[in-house]
C-alpha cells in the first residue's frame, strides 16, 4: 500500500456529508468508471436533504438495469423492483400511503421501453410521484443493446450497423401525456440537476427529470466517443439551456446539440386530488377524504 492509501483511511474519520443519505456500507457501487450515475445519486441525495421532507417519509423505487441499482444506494425506504415496473410499484406505494414522497429513478430502457405504458399512464393520471429518467442512450447492463432513446445512426450491439429506429423524445412524451413538471439536464450540470430534482419533488403530480448521462463502457466505446469524461466535455460544449423550450424541439441527434432546461411547470390536480374532490361531490359530507388519511 502506498502512503496515500494510508492517509485515505484516516480521512474516513471525517464523516462524509452523504453518510446519512447513502448506504455507505454498500460502497463501492457497481457502476463503471466515468459512469454518470453516481453524480445523479449525489444530486438526488442533495435534493432530498434540502427538500425539508423527513427522510423517513421518502421512498425511492427503481426498476432494473444500471440505474435500477440507484434504489439500493440511497438510505431511505428503497425498492429495487422488476424491469419496467418501477412506476406502477411507486404508484401503489404512493396511493396506499399518500404521505410518502415517492421517487422513481430508473433508466431510459426501463421507463420508456418496457415501462413505457406505465410511464404515459402515470403522467396522464398525474400520480404524485417524481420520475428521474437517466438516459444513457443504451441498454448498458445487458451489454449495449439499442434502446428507444438511441440516437439515429448510433451504434448498439443489436444495431451493429447503426440505429435506424427513430428514438423517443422523452420530455415531449411526458409533456403530451400531461406531466406537471418536465426538465432535462446532463449529469455534468450537477447544480441545475439538483435544483430540478428539488423542484420536481416539490411539484404535486407527475414530475419528470431526464438526465443525460455518459455510459463509457458501452455507448461511448461502441461509438468511439472516448470515455465518460469525453462525454462530459461533449455535454459541456454542446448543451444549450433553453428554459420553456417547445418540447417538440427536444430530439437528440447523434452527437448533435442537446437542449437542456426546465420545459414544463404546470401543477394540476393529482390523481388523489381528483379522487377526493369527485367523491366529495358525489357523496357530500358522508365522504371521508382519503388523503385525510395522511394525518
Amino acid at each position, binding site marked *: *500500500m*502506498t*502512503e*496515500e*492509501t494510508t*492517509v*485515505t483511511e*484516516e*480521512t*474516513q474519520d*471525517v464523516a*462524509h*456529508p*452523504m453518510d446519512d443519505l*447513502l448506504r*455507505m456500507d454498500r*460502497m*463501492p*457501487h457497481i*457502476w*463503471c*468508471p*466515468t*459512469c*454518470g*450515475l*453516481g*453524480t445523479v*445519486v*449525489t*444530486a438526488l441525495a*442533495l435534493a432530498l436533504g434540502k427538500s425539508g421532507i423527513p427522510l423517513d417519509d421518502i421512498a425511492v423505487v427503481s426498476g432494473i438495469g444500471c440505474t435500477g441499482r440507484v434504489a439500493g444506494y440511497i438510505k431511505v425506504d428503497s425498492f429495487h423492483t422488476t424491469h419496467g415496473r418501477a412506476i406502477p410499484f411507486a404508484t401503489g406505494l404512493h396511493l396506499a400511503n399518500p404521505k410518502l414522497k415517492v421517487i422513481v429513478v430508473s433508466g431510459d430502457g426501463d421507463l420508456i421501453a418496457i415501462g413505457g405504458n406505465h410511464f404515459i399512464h402515470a403522467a396522464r393520471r398525474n400520480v404524485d410521484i417524481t420520475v428521474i429518467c437517466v438516459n444513457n442512450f443504451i441498454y448498458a447492463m445487458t451489454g449495449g443493446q439499442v434502446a428507444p432513446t438511441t440516437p439515429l445512426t448510433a451504434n448498439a450491439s443489436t444495431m451493429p450497423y447503426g440505429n435506424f429506429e427513430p428514438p423517443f423524445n422523452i420530455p415531449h412524451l411526458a409533456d403530451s401525456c400531461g406531466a406537471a413538471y418536465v426538465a432535462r439536464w446532463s449529469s*455534468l*450540470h*450537477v*447544480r*441545475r440537476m*439538483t435544483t430540478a430534482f428539488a423542484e420536481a419533488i416539490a411539484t404535486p403530480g407527475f414530475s419528470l427529470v431526464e438526465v443525460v448521462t455518459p455510459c463509457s463502457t458501452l455507448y461511448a466505446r461502441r461509438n468511439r466517443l472516448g*470515455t*465518460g*469524461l469525453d462525454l*462530459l*466535455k461533449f455535454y*459541456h460544449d454542446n*448543451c444549450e*439551456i433553453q428554459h420553456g423550450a417547445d418540447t417538440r424541439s427536444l430530439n437528440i441527434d447523434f452527437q448533435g446539440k442537446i437542449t*437542456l432546461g426546465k420545459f414544463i411547470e404546470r401543477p394540476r390536480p393529482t390523481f388523489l386530488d381528483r379522487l377526493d374532490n369527485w367523491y366529495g361531490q358525489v357523496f357530500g359530507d358522508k365522504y371521508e377524504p382519503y388523503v385525510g388519511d395522511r394525518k
Partner: protein
Amino acid sequence: MPQDLPSPPESTKSKYWRKPLDADTVKVPHGELHIIVNRCKGCRFCVEYCPRDVLEMAEDFNVKGYHYPLVKDEVACVNCQLCEMLCPEFAIFCTQTEDEEEGGGEDEG
C-alpha cells in the same frame, strides 16, 4: 454555455480568471478536501472541473488499480463542492475550514 459550469477548458482557465473588485473585503471561503482514495475509479471529473485547479491525478494506483486525485494546491480550494457533487464514487468531499485553518495536510501525498 451552461452558466453553472465552473470554467472554460483548462488551457484557457487562468486567463479568464479575473480578480473581483471587492476581493479584499469579501471573505473567500476555504475548503478542506477529503479523498477516499480506494473508492476512486479514476474518472478525473474532479480534476477536470475544479474551477481553482486544486487537484491533480496521482501517479500511484489505489488498491483497485486506478489513479486518484491529490490536492496540489490546498490554499486554492474555495469549498465550492463541485468535485464532491460531480464525483460518481462519493470518493471526495469538501469541508469548510475555519479562519485558522489546519490546511489540507491529510491529503498531501
